[in-house]
């Protein structure tokens, strides 16, 4: 074979220096792009997951909160009712105390019926005057309607029945 040159020919490569430079540059660029893209993809996925978790947690808390508030409301109702009951018992005790304090020593009670809106007293009085001044007068100041009836006893004393009522409508109006 005939030679036209004194130096040996170099094999030509497609990866010339310029091409290598270009590919390196783009490789770095693409690497950065894909890295950023992967980061964003991962983060968006992670955000979605966290958001779902937060929403679920909030729902759970809302359910629990509803239960807590219902429990609080129920205890408040119980508390209010208990206060009402305790007050009623205390008022009743005071009413009974006042009733027995109201009876003068000269009058003897044989029976007392305390009703929702009234009071019926049975007893013995030496005479009508003592009954009228010492028992009926204070009863009249407390009750709206007072009725009395007397039955004579053999020893001259009088057996009495005193029926006293508070009119509900009037008591509501007064309040």
């Amino acid at each position, binding site marked *: 074979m005939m030679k036209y040159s004194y130096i040996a020919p170099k094999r030509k490569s497609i990866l*010339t220096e310029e091409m290598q430079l270009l590919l390196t540059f783009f490789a770095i660029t693409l690497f950065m792009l894909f890295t950023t893209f992967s980061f964003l993809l991962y983060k*968006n996925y992670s*955000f979605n997951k966290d*958001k779902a978790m937060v929403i679920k947690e909030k729902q759970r808390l809302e359910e629990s909160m509803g239960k*807590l508030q219902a429990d609080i409301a129920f205890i408040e109702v119980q508390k209010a*009712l208990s206060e009402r009951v305790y007050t009623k018992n205390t008022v009743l005790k005071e009413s009974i*105390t006042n009733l027995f304090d109201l009876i003068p020593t000269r009058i003897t009670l044989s029976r007392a019926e*305390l009703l929702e809106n009234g009071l019926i007293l049975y007893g013995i009085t030496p005479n009508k005057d003592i009954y009228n001044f010492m028992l009926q007068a204070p009863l009249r100041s407390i009750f709206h309607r007072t009725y009395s009836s007397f039955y004579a006893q053999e020893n001259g004393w009088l057996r009495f029945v005193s029926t006293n009522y508070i009119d509900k409508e009037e008591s509501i109006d007064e309040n």
Partner: protein
Amino acid sequence: MKINISRQHIYLMALSFFLFIFVLVFSFGVLIPQGKEYRIKRVELKKLSKELRAYKNLHSETAQTLQDLRSKNRSIITAFDATFNPERFEKQNKQYFSSLKVKEVDFSKVEDQFAIYEVNTTSEISSPTNFYKFLDAVNKSDWMIEVNFPIDFKRDGEMIKSSFKMKVYCNNNDTNATASSSEAK
């Protein structure tokens, strides 16, 4: 004038151009929308997390309030939960009476989430003071009891015979109602 560009350079330019276009398209078409989405989601998550934190605080405060209420009103809550037991009631309160008898326990009605039982009692007391003491004791008893009208006091020699009604309140649930009625029997 002839521009002499080698084939090598043409390939180089074409490759550069395609890669450049790819970078542009990828950046504007995919990367930037993804970035926007990332930013929106980050802000959204931050907001949701803040809301959740605030809600958790509120939840803790409410739980604490409930806890405080429960501990302050323990006796009331227990009283409403308790099923009325006539024998135990008689045993607990017989010290105030010469005799005490629970005659009958009847279911009355349901009012505001509470079942109400009516209890009729008869008793004998030596003086009204004992009845006052009983009324004080009722407010500290194991059940939610309201002493109710009619109350009847009748002299019987040295003693006073008394009969009165009581309303027992308890939480309205079927088990409680069943238990109470069975005990009443």
